[in-house]
């Protein structure tokens, strides 16, 4: 799972990436047409400014999501300028020796690669009933990529974590409009010093693209996407959880089950960390008409820090279930692709469902635990199809 890449290749990548970033990622606009996003054609535009792009379900067919199909979730404006010579990553707070690292210095630290399924905590919010405010994601605020960069703990150890250091805060270069609170969050020291938590500079072997946090982002595997702060510029070791909008009230789950539409006592909540067990159907698409027999049903399943153990399919609206075949490609924090071949006996309307179970015995529920921000939606996925004669 861990792979060390050569220092020379890494440095070449960095300088190449700076050049690419200068030339490639920018918007162009054509009158009377939709939103144009170079490098991201075909993605579902949930928001153009700030940029929020969802992967359409049919792209769930590749174990490693190509960068052009990888979802984008921005809370604010992407950095409008980037100064490669003066970029620094500072490490401060509860440390013995505060320090700041340049891009070149970062490139000299041993790099590791983690294949990780990154999912926005709000993925599936659009399916919550009653509706809740936020980006109305359906299935595709999730993707799997190989992330490469130094271990966060190697950088933290250079600074020397004091015994009082309990949480690690990340701040990015996002541009904050008006009086909006900045996008700052923290993770507990145990996860920050885990060997798999990285300061990623590369994604799928290429330098991070601008939309994905160039030149460096946190990569907190198995956890909600919000933990993996983009355009990283400041790391601070704290003696307690960071106190700010995106830790509280943002990104919290109620400790108790809430009746749909009900109120939550903010004191009775916890910060969201790992992703739950979840699966989605890539194809056939919801509402599609199909004539092929046999029909291949396929999709992806993931479980955050746990492993997917089983994927079941129902073609009769949940009355009977059969095991699907899990794909051979796997890595600790990565999704499994799955598929199932089905021979519909009769033409007509069918509801196809998929349901994943992980190695901790958690199974996707029939309906997701409702919460006022629509986080961690993981109900059994379903599509309705019409089988033609």
């Amino acid at each position, binding site marked *: 799972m861990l792979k060390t890449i050569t220092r020379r290749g890494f440095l070449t990548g960095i300088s190449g990436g*700076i*050049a690419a*970033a*200068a*030339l490639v*990622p*920018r*918007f*162009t*606009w*054509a*009158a009377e*047409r*939709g*939103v*144009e*996003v*170079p*490098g*991201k*054609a*075909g*993605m*579902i*535009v*949930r*928001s*153009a*400014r*700030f940029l*929020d*792009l*969802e992967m*359409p379900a049919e792209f769930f067919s590749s174990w490693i999501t190509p960068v052009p199909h990888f979802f984008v979730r921005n809370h604010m*404006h*992407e*950095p*409008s*300028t*980037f*100064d*490669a*010579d003066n970029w620094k990553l500072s490490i401060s707070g509860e440390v013995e020796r505060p320090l700041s690292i340049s891009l070149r210095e970062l490139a000299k630290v041993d790099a590791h690669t983690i294949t990780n399924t990154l999912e926005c905590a709000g993925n599936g919010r*659009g399916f919550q009933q*009653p*509706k*809740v*405010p936020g*980006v*109305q994601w*359906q299935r595709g605020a999730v993707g799997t990529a190989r992330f490469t960069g130094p271990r966060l703990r190697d950088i933290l150890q250079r600074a020397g974590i004091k015994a009082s250091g309990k949480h690690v805060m990340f701040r990015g270069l996002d541009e904050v*409009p*008006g*009086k*909006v*609170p900045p996008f700052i969050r923290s993770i507990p020291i145990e996860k920050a010093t885990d060997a798999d938590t990285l300061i990623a500079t590369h994604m799928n072997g290429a330098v991070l693209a*601008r939309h994905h946090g160039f030149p460096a982002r946190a990569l907190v595997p198995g956890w909600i996407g919000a933990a993996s702060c983009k355009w990283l510029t400041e790391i601070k070791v704290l003696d307690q959880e960071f106190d700010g909008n995106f830790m509280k009230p943002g990104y919290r789950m109620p400790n108790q089950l809430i009746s749909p539409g009900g109120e939550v006592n903010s004191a009775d909540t916890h910060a969201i960390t790992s992703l739950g067990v979840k699966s989605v159907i890539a194809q056939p698409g919801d509402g599609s008409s199909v004539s092929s027999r046999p029909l291949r049903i396929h999709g992806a399943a993931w479980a955050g820090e746990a492993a997917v153990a089983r994927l079941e399919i129902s073609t009769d609206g949940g009355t009977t279930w059969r095991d699907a075949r899990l794909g051979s490609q796997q890595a600790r924090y990565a999704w499994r692709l799955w598929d199932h071949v089905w021979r519909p006996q009769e033409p007509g309307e069918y509801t196809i469902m998929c349901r994943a179970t992980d190695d901790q015995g958690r199974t996707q529920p029939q309906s997701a635990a409702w919460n006022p921000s629509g986080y961690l939606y993981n109900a059994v996925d379903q599509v309705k199809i019409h089988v033609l004669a």
Partner: protein
Amino acid sequence: MCSRNRFRPRAWASAVVWLACSTLLQAQSPELPTGPVQAKVRTACTECHDSHIIVQQRLSNKAWSREVDKMIKWGAVVDSVDRNAFIDYLSVSFPPDKAPEPGERAGPGKKK
């Protein structure tokens, strides 16, 4: 403003400017439905983000009033006499029982 950056090693290394082209981007913002405060909502509510994030919501009057108050706290400029009219306009235009917004696909951008 959106013209192609030339690759000039020295120039870009010291300061690479990413072009956000935000004024042109506003033109790509979905139309807001006609209504008493349509123009005021467009001015106050598409300053920081475009209208995609607004038109995709399906919320009750109570939830819209929370959103409007949150955005005012974050810096949206809404005259206090207009607050209720904003909430009514948004609740009538984007209520819970309205069909969801179809997801628009991103285009590839200009090829040169």
